[in-house]
């Protein structure tokens, strides 16, 4: 709310938006988790979403997830593209009947007055070949801007989801740019003390872009991929779903880096994705099998 003391602050900062969502979903019965501590491409990859989507047990969780997409790096030169960004992830199983209402309320909680804005649910069927996951839902538009991915999972780790969970993935940078009216992601106000997104992330975007595209050692990556795969399979034999799944995540990240380095040929690509999917499937199967 606008105050006279601080003219600049007629909108929420990045960290306030995050905190607002944490508070909101906490109030609505979610387990508030912290980000997963290994590199992932999206909030969906967190085992709190993937593995917990499987099986009959109810589950509600929410968390921020730093997400890495090496190929999206632009050395900090593009106003809309980052190789590292934040997603706010909510997973509700089974999907509650009032989930759309809940979602709209959560927007209000972060300074988007849904009565005044044009909120739309635009068809978007989601699929992740690496995870063996698929779902139906929408991308949510606010005045023409995509701010959230809203998906009813039908399948995860190549297994049918029963009951069906719903996943809400908020693009935090986009929402924040929208709320703050910024045209460049690096101009986002991170807090109320004048710290900008650029101050925190510009250097890392530059350096990681160089790493992702130029300097990542592809031989090491390839070796690491294979080691992670072997480790995952051996852990699956011991029915250790979570450690095995960690190795699947690592394999997936190594693959993304190899992809960014442009060393994966056309025919190989599908092969790599298939191998990761197998690991995810194995992890899901063991998770289900050993669930009490």
């Amino acid at each position: 709310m606008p105050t006279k003391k601080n003219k600049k602050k007629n909108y929420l900062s990045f960290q306030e938006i995050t905190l607002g969502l944490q508070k909101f979903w906490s109030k609505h019965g979610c387990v508030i988790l912290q980000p997963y501590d290994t590199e992932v491409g999206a909030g969906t990859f967190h085992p709190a979403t993937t593995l917990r989507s499987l099986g009959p047990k109810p589950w509600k969780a929410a968390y921020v997830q730093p997400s890495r997409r090496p190929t999206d790096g632009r050395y900090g030169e593009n106003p809309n593209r980052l190789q590292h960004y934040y997603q706010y992830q909510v997973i509700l199983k089974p999907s509650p009947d009032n989930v759309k209402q809940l979602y709209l309320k959560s927007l209000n909680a972060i300074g988007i007055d849904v009565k005044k804005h044009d909120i739309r649910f635009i068809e978007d069927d989601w699929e992740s070949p690496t995870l063996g996951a698929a779902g139906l839902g929408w991308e949510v538009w606010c005045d023409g801007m995509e701010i959230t991915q809203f998906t009813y999972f039908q399948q995860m780790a190549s297994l049918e989801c029963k009951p069906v969970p719903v996943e809400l993935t908020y693009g935090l940078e986009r929402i924040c740019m929208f709320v703050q009216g910024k045209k460049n992601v690096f101009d986002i106000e991170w807090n109320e003390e004048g710290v900008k997104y650029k101050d925190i992330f510009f250097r890392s975007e530059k350096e990681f872009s160089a790493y992702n595209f130029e300097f990542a050692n592809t031989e090491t990556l390839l070796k690491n991929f294979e080691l992670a795969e072997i480790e995952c399979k051996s852990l699956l034999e011991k029915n250790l779903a979570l450690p095995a799944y960690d190795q699947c995540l690592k394999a997936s990240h190594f693959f993304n880096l190899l992809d960014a380095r442009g060393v994966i040929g056309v025919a190989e690509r599908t092969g790599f994705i298939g191998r990761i999917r197998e690991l995810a499937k194995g992890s899901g199967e063991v998770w289900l099998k050993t669930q009490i």
Partner: protein
Amino acid sequence: MNEFFVELYSEEIPPNLQINVRKEFEDRIRNLLIDENIKFKKIFSYSSPTRLVIHVIGVVDKIKISSKVIKGPKVGVIEDILNNFLRSNNASKKALFKKKIDKGEFYFIKTLPKELFAKDLLIKIILNIISSFKWKKSMKWSNHSMIWGRPLRSILAIYNNNHLSFNFGHLRSTENAIIEKDLLVKTKKVKNFKDYENFLKKNNVFFNQKEREQKIIKKLEQICKSGNYNNVFNNRLIEEVTNIVEDPNVLLLEFDKKYLEIPPEIIISTLELHQKYFPLFDNKNKLTNNFCVVANKPDTNNIIKDGNQRVVEARLSDAKFFWNKDKSRNLIKQLANLKKITFYEKLGSIYDKTQRLRKLSSWLSDEININKEKVEIAASISKSDLCSDLVNEYPELQGKMGKYFALAQGFDEEVANAVSDHYLPIGNASIVAKKPISYSISLVDKLDTLVGFFLINQKPTSSKDPLALRRSAIGLLKTIIENKINIKLSDLINYNIKLFQEQKVNIENIDVENEIIKFLRDRIKNILKEKNIKGDIIDASISSHANSNFLDLYKKNIIMNKYINKDIGKNVLSSYKRAFNIVGKSADNIDGNPDAVLFRQDEEKNLFEKIKEIRKNITIKENNKDFEKLLISLSETRLLTDSFFDKVKVNDENIDIKNNRLQLLKLFCNTFNNFINFSKLEGVS
């Protein structure tokens, strides 16, 4: 008035699914009402993203079913059959009686007259329909086992002011209508359709798609009139937008003029495809920096307008960034990047494809006499925009961007055009590539796709064609026909197969040449049907199509169709028919080889001479065969055949002479069949 209506209230169903289901709902309810003898006046069907509504007016209350006599099994059949008959007609043994008819003695039953209540039948009908909708895509949610396009939340069912109560899956039908607008949730018990309509309208929910569409169109027209814009809009987009809003409000917006520097296709694609906005064009049809947005509510204080404008500017600034970067990236130097893009898993990369296209088009350029150098360059760069950032962002602009890059880098205009136009035709009503360099690349690109997929046995089936090979084939044929490309495809196909082999593609099908020719013949039927060629002419021409020149095949159809009901056609047919009637089903040893020594009458000799003359004309290797002239020369045989049959008795006592006459007539028929297989024409055999 008696009425009945149902509303299926769900979360937002995508426009295509929604439109399909609305139509299906209406069709099926109409058919089932008729099947069940329920008389009605009219059916209305409506839909919005969240509502699917069917409204039937003038429904009768009761349905009288008169008594009927039903024939059963023959007397003497085993008990089981008889019981089945009784069970399926819901009758008891007492109702049976026997009766003799001309096929023997049978069991019969006579059903009693009945009166059914429409109400009960309506529930049955509704449940039947909604439990078996043909969703193109459907889902489950929560703990439920129900399948729907998006979660179904509530069913409202009313019949003659009363709640029509039934269960469907986990839901029980209600008499309450629901409004959910933003955070506001309201429900209201409704008695009838009028009530329902009023409640929704009062809350600015327009469930009637036609009403929404009219509202949008009217406002767009107003904007065009007052701003002097060209009043032409994309109808598909109007339909889509109509079905993603419930309370349409058209807003007029603008973006910074500086973005008009980038190719208009990019801007149009951004607006239409990505944002579902309507670009505005001035009266010279030039893109302006104004556009319209259809919002789902009125815009207070320009909040929605500002937001949408910012989104467009962000997207256009991205596009401009990519445009500036991509247009200066040397297309030739980028070719190696195409190695990273798969064409299809077993068929190598796009780079491999362009290498094949270069060789194929080079070969073609010799055949049809066009500039070899240009066509080779065009083939090489035809796909190079696929590795640009812009096409990555806007896949629908493939080719179009390549053309701009090529022009920006000083490539010849014909070459640049080929980069965009070789993808033509796109869609059924689309034009084909018209310039030599463009149509050459277009032709070999489509052929290469067909050959490739046939080689690895990825062929379309009767119901499935995921790789759209039918479309490629039709595009290929239309390109050949409209540009009059006189070429036998067999040689090109075989060269194409060789090129795949050189690239170490694993050949899984050894009959590709024949299969593709056959595939193309099946496809050309559709093209000919669209040209209103008579079905028997199409069959007759395809049945005698012995080579792989599809332009000739097409021309013969056009000529034959033109003359079939005129004197020329009638004479040809009459001539052929007389010969065919005698020799059509003759023995195998009659193969059309008469011996001139055995001719006894002038009529035989004259006919033979004429046939020889025609055959010479047929076999002449000429680039533009004049099929009209050929057909006329066939028709000229009429006089000769007439006098032949008047004067010559085929059934001569001397068997050698008789056979020789049959041979002559056979030769005559064979000669005609070179043109088209006349025996397949209506009225010949």
